[in-house]
């Protein structure tokens, strides 16, 4: 069961907490919005990814099952 992360760009207002909690995958662009370097979540970072998803103030970070996995 693989998961991937996706940002809902409409809900995202650039709080930037996700980049603090998951710096391995998420970086902020010059305007404060997240750039995901890879959408797949490595096994070891699952807990951190879940926390990042949970902490987003606007529920803009989404964790989805990769279809077909």
């Amino acid at each position: 069961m693989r998961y991937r992360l996706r940002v809902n760009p409409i809900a995202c207002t650039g709080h930037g907490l996700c980049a603090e909690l998951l710096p391995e995958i998420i970086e902020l662009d010059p305007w404060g919005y997240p750039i995901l370097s890879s959408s797949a979540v490595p096994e070891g970072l699952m807990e951190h990814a879940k926390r990042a998803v949970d902490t987003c103030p606007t529920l803009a970070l989404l964790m989805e099952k990769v279809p077909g996995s």
Partner: protein
Amino acid sequence: MTSIALSAYRAPELRLPRLLAGVSYYHPTGLAEHEQLYGPLPLPVVSPEQGRTWQQRPERLIEMVERSGLTGRGGAGFPTGRKMRSVAAGQGRAIVIANGAEGEPASCKDRLLLTRVPHLVLDGITLAAYAVGADEAHLVVHGHEADLLASLEEAIAHRGTLGVDPVPIQITGIPARYVSSEASSIIQYLGGGPGKPTFSPPRPHERGLKGRPTLVNNVETLAHLALIARYGDGWFRGIGPPSAPGSTLVTVGGAVARPGVYEIEMGTPLGRVAMLAGGPTERPQALLVGGYFGAWLPAELAWPVPMTHAGLRAVGGAMGAGIVIVLPVSSCPLAETARVVSYLAEETAAQCGPCMFGLPALADAVIELAYAGGWGRAIEAIATLVPLIEKRGACRHPDGATQLVCSALTAFAAHARRHDRQGPCYGVGRAPLLPVPSDGDRDWDWA
């Protein structure tokens, strides 16, 4: 599904024009004229005595559309039959939305169809509703076009008195903003929200307006449907290459003798399209194909390229909604691009950060390159910005702008380098060719 005998009407004998066969200079084609030219609407009549109902035959129409190879004429070029099939198979009663809100400033084909031959489009809507089992049908145009709205309401009402359309067609005016004519914006607006794009999933054909499967088609696509339903898929495939059959409307503009809307066979070389419009009035430098979501192509490269989605993609271009603008050597493509990107930057929905902040920054960089170059840093600034903007919005608006800019830097690489190192060329002073709506024609709030 009764099909029309080909010999009974004049229109199917003509190779071209097809959609524009009945266009009159003086007045819109009325319903009687329309039926005289093309034949009546080929919809099975609901007849309780014979036991035939709506639900029995729509499959056949969808199959016919699939076999015909008709693709969307709104820019994306998605196979229409496949879209209709997935909407028909969705959960819940379907809804049909005809998109007549031509957001591209350089395109006039939808406007032509709606003002001159509205009954082709209205037939198409009714046939689409029949095919996907819809009980609700909408036609949308930009709200500030009061005359267009009035004439369409009249045409619909006329059909209503004769009972032509089993599903009444509701016409709605949407905000005059570039992003409002996108499919998800229309769906959100019709649902009572602002005319701004929404996040997908879910896609419209699965869950669109009111959570029901929604078929959104460009009005030209529906006009083609109206003729396919009458004369069959074999007739439709009679012109155009097998991979891109049929005819299509193109809006030709820029430095040509007779700018306007023309109906061409799919696959017509771009040079021939320019010649149809009277040919270039000056030596052409480049063609902008596909509108403001399209791409620049140098003239020598573009001239023999066939006008199909695949043909244009193969040379790094895009077909978009069939827009061809000829740029002469006396114009500066960077200056034209800068104006367009500034317009696109003002037209963001302001929902997604990378687009809302990135496009104005990109516009500034392109303006600097075009008008204030000489510092050697503008191209680099653009190259840094593009990956921060593309594919990071909820809709394709930022992608269109970045595609336009990147194609300009590719097609005019040497010219851009000269701008960057030495400053603007003489072409920047030429009167602008690419149309950008004036402030008066745009809605400034979203209501």
